[in-house]
């Protein structure tokens, strides 16, 4: 599969996402500059984490005007899978590809730590290989991750099963203590109505090797590969190679 990873000025998880696609999964991957006007022959597009344009205005508010975002919208409208991680999620919200907005964390502080996110729905390209209700031990790192939308929008998201990830306790309970930022209904990630565009605040790309603390994030990336195999001819994909850097501690 070919991954296109968009690089905005100020993206800082671009290399990490590339590392997972290329080195851990053994797939084809390309960094695409935000001023480019083509995604090449990408099968999947990822908007990585970071601080696009410094995020001095609202997070993602400037990035949505980058030339490449036109291509991303076209790609998404055609059903292509698009994943926004952290800042990438914020960009998708600003671009109108996903509903809602991000507020400052309720603690008013940046927060970085491992926590637990539960997979709510498995019928998206990014959760296809997950077990329903699977609990991922996965890190967050953000200052503006407090997901908000009007009550009717939230109701629609819940009704349409568009909430894809939720913050939970280690044993899978949706509690206020498990909510790191104040997001409505502990929402950690959502999808669009077509279910091909997914945004989430936690960082699956930071949890793909046990060496760095968890390999639970691989479920998200394996889902993409599974989606690819099911959508296209299986032979066109390189076999997923186990990373030499995955090991038990």
């Amino acid at each position, binding site marked *: 599969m070919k991954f296109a990873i968009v690089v905005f000025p100020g993206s800082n998880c671009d290399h990490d996402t590339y590392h997972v696609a290329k080195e851990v999964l053994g797939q084809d991957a390309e960094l695409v*500059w935000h001023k480019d006007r083509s995604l090449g022959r990408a099968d999947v597009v990822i908007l990585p984490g970071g601080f696009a344009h*410094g995020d001095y205005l609202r997070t993602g508010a400037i990035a949505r005007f980058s030339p490449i975002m036109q291509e991303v919208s076209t790609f998404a409208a055609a059903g292509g899978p698009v994943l926004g991680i952290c800042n990438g999620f914020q960009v998708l919200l600003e671009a109108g590809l996903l509903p809602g907005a991000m507020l400052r964390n309720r603690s008013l*502080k940046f927060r*970085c730590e491992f926590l637990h996110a539960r997979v709510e729905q498995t019928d998206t390209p990014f959760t296809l290989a997950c077990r329903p209700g699977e609990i991922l031990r996965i890190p967050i790192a953000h200052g503006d991750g407090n997901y908000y939308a009007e009550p009717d929008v939230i109701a629609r998201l819940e009704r349409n099963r568009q909430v894809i990830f939720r913050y939970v306790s280690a044993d899978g309970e949706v509690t206020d203590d498990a909510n790191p930022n104040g997001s409505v209904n502990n929402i950690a990630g959502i999808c669009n109505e077509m279910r091909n565009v997914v945004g989430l605040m936690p960082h699956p790309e930071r949890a793909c*090797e046990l060496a760095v603390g968890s390999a639970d994030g691989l479920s998200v990336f394996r889902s993409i590969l599974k989606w690819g195999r099911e959508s296209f001819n299986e032979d066109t994909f390189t076999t997923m190679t186990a990373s030499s850097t995955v090991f038990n501690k």
Partner: protein
Amino acid sequence: MTPDPITDSVLQRHGVTRDEYARIVTMLGREPNLTELGIFSVMWSEHCSYKSSRVHLKTLPTTGRRVLQGPGENAGAVDIGDGLAAVFKIESHNHPSFIEPYQGAATGVGGIIRDIFTMGARPIALLNSLRFGPLDDPLVRRTMSGVVAGIGGYGNSIGIPTVGGEIGFDRSYSGNPLVNVFCLGISRADGIIKGTASGVGNAVYYVGAKTGRDGIHGATMASAEFDDTLNEKRPAVQVGDPFMEKLLLEACLEVMKTDALVGIQDMGAAGLTCSTCEMGSRGGAGVEIDVARVPQRETGMTPYEIMLSESQERMLLVVKKGREAEVEQIFDKWDLHAVQIGEVTSDGRLRVKDHGQVVADIPNKSLTDEAPMYRRPIAKPSYIDAAQQLNLDALGAPPAPRDVFRRLLASPGIASKRWVYRQYDHMVRTNTLLLPGMGAAAVRVKGTSRALAMSVDCNGRFVYLDPFVGAQLAVAEASRNVACAGGLPIGATNCLNFGNPEKPEIMWQFARAVEGMGAACRALDIPITGGNVSLYNETDGSGVLPTPVIGVVGLVENAERIVGRTFRSEGDIVILLGETRNELGGSEFVHVVHDQIRGVPPRLDLVREASLQRLLVDCAATGLIRSAHDCAEGGIAVTLAECCFDTKLGVSVDLAAVPDTPSPYGDTAALFAESASRVVVSVAPAQVTALLAMSASAGVPARQLGRVGGSRIQIAVKGRPVIDEGAADMERIWATAIESWFEQRRAIA
């Protein structure tokens, strides 16, 4: 050039003495104008010239088999194999962080990152060493909140993880916090780029943020004590822009991949002045620039202001003649404007023009190598002899061990720093092998099987009581922490934080600490490849504890064999490497329970320390040990507790009695003494014999203490139980102590 009248008050404002002025006149062969005086004043400031410290720093060991770059460049570099180099340095931003905590700390992070990528290295890790006053002071909490937010604000945005560090608390830092920031990057061993200007006619480029009036005389401010005019100094602190620096970082690394670059230097302290004359001086060349071409943020700036501005996120580049377009194109891609402001000349002078008219003309060497160097008078401070007296009997009967244990776990110096590091992105770049608080910082080196372990340390109390031994203990602790993780110490960088060097007592502390640091680094075979000196850490005449922070970098051959602080499995055997002696001098116990800094610091046998560290590295490499944790503040009782925290495991041990202890203090010494060269390790039961044999042949005392398991922390001394507490309860005390000072959810009684 029309000479300006240089009066005594003009000199005083510039921090230039009459003698120094006479020297300037001799060097120039004439009176300087005001712009030239400004240039001399910042380059000859303590901050830039190291005029009080250089004679001492010269005695430090700076060479070694692995050293690729020693002191004198923007950062040091050591060979880590696989054709790669680790480039690292630590620097202080103490004074700005007190005046404006958020921006002071943020720009400190920005400055050290520039020093690293300037060398051609991609920064992959940040650490910091911080000191604050007691947390019951709301102003201290405000300072600490701001500093932590500023460090996070910059590092998180630019995407370099803050993977570790240390924080200490003492009253002496209330009016003068310390903010020391360490950065490490990776470059190709043969790709290190220097801050040098050479090749007559090569273009001198300015890239990055525009120049404003911010930070004028920042270097001079950092070379003076604080007094009640503090608020007037606020404009001398700059505002950081991590986004601009991220663009600079990526663009510069891209330019460095071409061979169009001759040299590059960031504009840090003393801005355009420092970068031009230092690059010229290193390359044995002259540099001529026209300030009218410098991009400016404000109108009507004078050459004086432009030369002395410390606006952040600016770089100076020397580009090969004929390659300009190539370089400009790369900066264009990143929406950065690279402007040619001058060229390299052959005459060894810094020549500054304004619209073609010469406004300053100074030999580069007079600003750098030939800057004044002082051998300041030294005198042993009168407090030392009295402070070294610790009469335990006079302190009365010690409190019950369980009470001391709880108080120590809640002491901010020992308590969990989670409230702090949770505000730092410590995982970006996906190399972090040990999370903050889990031992030394450790990052893997992608593309190799290796990892780097890092630790920054200094116990200011020990240095205060005996600067020579205290500085040795700092080196030993930092390198021991690195060795615990399995890293062979291969290089170090230091940040020497002291008071006013014009006081002979302060200079004595400084001189003795540098001697101690040098002796320890020689014995442990750790070259110091660079660092920073911060003097005048005084407010209203009262100095900080002398705090020579050392950052040690260790090489772990097999990243899969990294060892952390925490116990791993029920039933593992707990072993103490090293011996506990009756050493409560300068301890956290005496500080917390008796509110004193008193006694003689623990003895340090450097030969034993070296054996211990070699043993630890060998044990980690062979996978023999499952955890290793240094005994430091709070003694072995606190170490054992910390080995349990974050694991849900307990421990049950029996400690040996400590010889030569006055009777009521036997248990106290056994539990809380801070003897050096001690590490608590855990091993699988089947490995005990092997470990004891390895220790014996290394000449390291080893004693089986007990086993991991249960849910309690049970410590006996010579068979008699003295501490028996629930591990979860103790963890709660330790984990929430700092947080509770900041989160205002505490019930109001």
